[in-house]
């Protein structure tokens, strides 16, 4: 008799392009995801009681350079302890005031709390990292913070002028998928 629970993996064949299409950052305390069981994808999302888009909550889009974003989750094992090291890299344009303000807010949020992200991939699947509230309950801390971002002008005309945003966070599992549809995310979009 097996002492572990395993399953096979055989997804139906489909177009499976790499890369990220769109990304949103959110305050993990503001968004409540719905999940049938602990290993099911998220099927719905709503603002927690008291949070409003007008009041500053919601999913905030991050417009990055085309095909310049990547999420990775690297697993490692020490003894019986699993670690999934999540990283999210996004290259955003225009080294200037607006970017500086954005970076300042992201760095303050990172030192005081954490950040959540909804990531729409080019294969159509949407994943979530850094979430905090599921089925109206707080889950174990999934802390994603900005760490290692580089902001600069570049040297040559064809160098990157802007920032290479870097977000990092360790967790006990890979990212869960959100299957409620991207239109639902856009409906809860703030500025």
């Amino acid at each position: 008799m097996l002492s572990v629970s395993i399953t096979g993996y055989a997804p139906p064949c489909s177009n499976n392009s790499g890369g990220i299409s769109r990304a949103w950052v959110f305050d993990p305390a503001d968004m409540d995801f719905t999940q049938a069981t602990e290993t099911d994808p998220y099927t719905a999302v709503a603002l927690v009681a008291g949070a409003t888009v007008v009041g500053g909550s919601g999913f905030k889009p991050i417009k990055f350079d085309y095909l310049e974003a990547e999420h990775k989750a690297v697993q490692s094992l020490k003894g019986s302890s699993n670690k999934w090291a999540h990283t999210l890299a996004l290259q955003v344009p225009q080294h200037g005031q607006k970017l500086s303000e954005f970076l300042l807010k992201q760095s303050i949020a990172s030192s005081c709390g954490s950040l959540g992200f909804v990531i729409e991939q080019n294969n159509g699947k949407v994943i979530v990292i850094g979430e905090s509230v599921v089925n109206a309950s707080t889950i174990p801390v999934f802390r994603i913070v900005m760490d290692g971002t580089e902001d600069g002008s570049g040297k040559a005309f064809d160098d990157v002028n802007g920032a290479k945003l870097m977000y990092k966070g360790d967790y006990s599992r890979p990212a869960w998928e959100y299957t409620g549809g991207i239109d639902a995310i856009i409906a809860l979009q703030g500025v």
Partner: protein
Amino acid sequence: MENIFEIKPEFKTAVVGFNNSGLPLGKRSDLHLLAEMAQYSPGLRKYFVAVPTMEQINDYKAARFMAAIANTTVENNTEKTNNSTLPGEKVTQTMALVPMPKAVRGFKAKKNKNI
């Protein structure tokens, strides 16, 4: 049909993203899905005047399914009746919707050839 998915007035403009839509709850026609999720997600229960039981939701889904089938049948029959010129044609067309086995098709072709 009785509305068992009534949303509280204060949440009619609230947005819950699910089923690929972010329309306000007061404008949704797929609240049975939200009610289904509310069975295991307490945060979603607050939107309903009364959260329907799983049995009620299943009854609703069954009734909706039967209504959809009835509508399709009526539409198909109306179309066929409108196009029919010969008596009994309606029956023939209904049968034609079922794919015919290869052997039967061959038999029919041969028979026609002989004629």
